[in-house]
């Protein structure tokens, strides 16, 4: 068996997988609310369905991580998760009735939580912990290209055909993703033989992992990042619709696409930088860029001038997207509990996102949108200082030698 060839195929498979997973996930975003509205759903039941999905995704983070840790067949986990996505998308398209939609939301929430860690684990198995940074940079590049492609495709399909066809498209796009997993099966055996797998060494105890101060600090930073970040674009785009209703949809499309382009361009470099210089500085940069973006959103009112501000979103998204799997791998990659640790950080991120939209909604009602955006920005800047002072560098000594 020629190992180099199969590894190269696996590299490419992972690229394509990231691309199409991001494609498919675009269909499960805020667009669901639009679709259910066209089906005559009331706002109350739409809110309920979306909450079911959010809660399911949050509650399953940690258990799903534990499930992924239990098997060395990460490619199987990824394949089943994608099949589940296809089922969810078809349920949305074909049976938009409450019970079905709630089920689909729960299924999608859980399978998102198994898919993410399994892709991260396959990346780790492919390149090893010493070269994970650059590989994650590449993952992020293909994901953001996939996000932009998905948004463009689904926006066009939703506009020209119907909002229902968006879900048929999402279901269809799971198949190239599943096909991309094929060359990744070889990684399962590699991960099986790798040090740290439970058949070779007992995984460390969950308590030891949970009580790792570095992991907790990072989880808090991730939570603060998402808290400041999640409500920022919805708030800003709401006021764009208010101020420039005629071209709001184009502006918002630009707001979504521009950061994706930035992520696609700079991610590999960010990954290399994390590899050669370290993670801590990137965490501080991600939070600082987010903070400045919040302040600019609060201060600048002409929507056209806000488009360049979204460049900052690209910077912080690229750093953050790479750091979550990377820092977690630094701390738990060889422990036999990598996916569990990712679930833990994912749970913190989920809390940050939920609290963010709720708190920002209430604040915007009482003190207005500019002050709310200011508050989010200041929170991010304070978190940058916190990360600078408290977060230790997690890059291993082995990596600097490689």
């Amino acid at each position, binding site marked *: 068996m020629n190992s180099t060839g199969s590894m190269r195929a696996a590299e490419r498979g992972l690229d394509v997988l990231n691309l199409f997973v991001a494609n498919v996930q675009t269909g499960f*975003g805020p667009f669901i609310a639009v679709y259910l509205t066209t089906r*005559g759903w009331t*706002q109350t039941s739409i809110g309920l369905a979306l909450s079911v999905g959010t809660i399911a995704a949050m509650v399953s983070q940690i258990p799903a991580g534990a499930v992924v840790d239990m098997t060395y067949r990460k490619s199987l986990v990824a*394949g089943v998760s994608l099949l589940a996505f296809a089922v969810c998308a078809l349920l949305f398209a074909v049976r938009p009735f*409450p019970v079905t939609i709630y089920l689909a939301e729960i299924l999608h929430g859980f399978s998102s939580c198994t898919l993410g860690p399994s892709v991260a684990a396959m990346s780790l198995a492919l390149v090893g912990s010493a070269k994970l940074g650059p590989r994650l940079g590449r993952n992020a590049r293909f994901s953001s290209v996939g996000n932009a492609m998905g948004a463009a495709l689904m926006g066009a399909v939703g506009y020209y055909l119907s909002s229902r066809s968006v879900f048929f498209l999402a279901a269809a796009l799971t198949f190239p993703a599943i096909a991309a997993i094929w060359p990744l099966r070889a990684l399962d055996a590699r991960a099986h033989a790798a040090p740290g797998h439970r058949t070779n060494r007992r995984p460390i105890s969950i308590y030891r992992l949970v009580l790792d101060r570095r992991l907790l600090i990072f989880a808090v930073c991730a939570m603060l990042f998402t808290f400041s970040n999640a409500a920022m674009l919805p708030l800003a785009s709401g006021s764009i619709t208010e101020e420039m209703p*005629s071209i709001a949809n184009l502006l918002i*499309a630009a707001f*979504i696409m521009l950061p994706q382009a930035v992520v696609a361009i700079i991610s590999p470099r960010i990954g290399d930088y994390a590899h050669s210089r370290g993670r801590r500085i990137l965490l501080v940069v991600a939070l600082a860029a987010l903070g400045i973006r919040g302040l600019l959103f609060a201060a600048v009112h002409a929507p056209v001038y806000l488009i360049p501000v979204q460049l900052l979103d690209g910077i912080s998204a690229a750093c953050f997207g790479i750091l979550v799997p990377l820092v977690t791998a630094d701390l738990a990659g060889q422990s036999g509990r990598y996916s569990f640790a990712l679930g833990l950080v994912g749970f913190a991120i989920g809390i940050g996102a939920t609290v963010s939209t709720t708190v920002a909604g209430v604040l915007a009602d009482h003190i207005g949108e500019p002050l709310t955006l200011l508050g989010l920005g200041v929170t991010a800047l304070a978190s940058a200082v916190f990360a600078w002072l408290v977060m230790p560098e997690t890059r291993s000594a082995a990596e600097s030698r490689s």
Partner: protein
Amino acid sequence: MDRFNRPRRGWVAVAAIMIGLLWGGTATAAEDQAKRPAPATAAQPEGQPSVQPPVQPKAPAAAKPLAPVIAPKKEAEGILGKQVYGVNGADMGLVTNVLVDRAGNPIAVVIDFGGFLGMGIRKIAIDWHLMRFHPGNKDKPVTLSLEKGQLKAAPTYDPDKPPRIVGTSAAPTPAKPATPPTAAQPAKSPTPTATKPSPPAAVTPPTPTPAPAAKDHPGK
């Protein structure tokens, strides 16, 4: 490469089970949906006996089944979730709610306006009289004599607050219990003028009068 055969069989089995469970489990959902009771036309205000109840043909005391009246073909149609088209066929968003007063008269339509892929949507209540309905017209069932630009700075509809409605004339809203029922109230329809150049003609300040009840019914 022998060991990869097992996982592959596993895939198929798991997928088959999942699809089977979901499809089977939801087979009855369609029927449930169909049997859902029709929504009440107006929420009943509580503990307000002073207001005279709307005069409506009452069903005989004896519980006699009502004879169904069949609407002329295509002359009655649901509007929730329908796309609203503005002047020049502009996409004005989706109908998400209808606001009614105590007598059950429609006051305003709430639309989900703007946005891209669900991001940046705002809810705006628009005066009922600015809306035009075309039952039977598949392409444009609901139209609105406004341009997108006229919704600039329109207030966001918040179900928890007295509704602020775009396009309502400054005159008090029709359902004002305090005013005695003088026979001829001035025609309450501010004739919609499509050519109105300025942003929303008048945005009524929050009215102190009873808020029209939202015709909202939870999905379950």
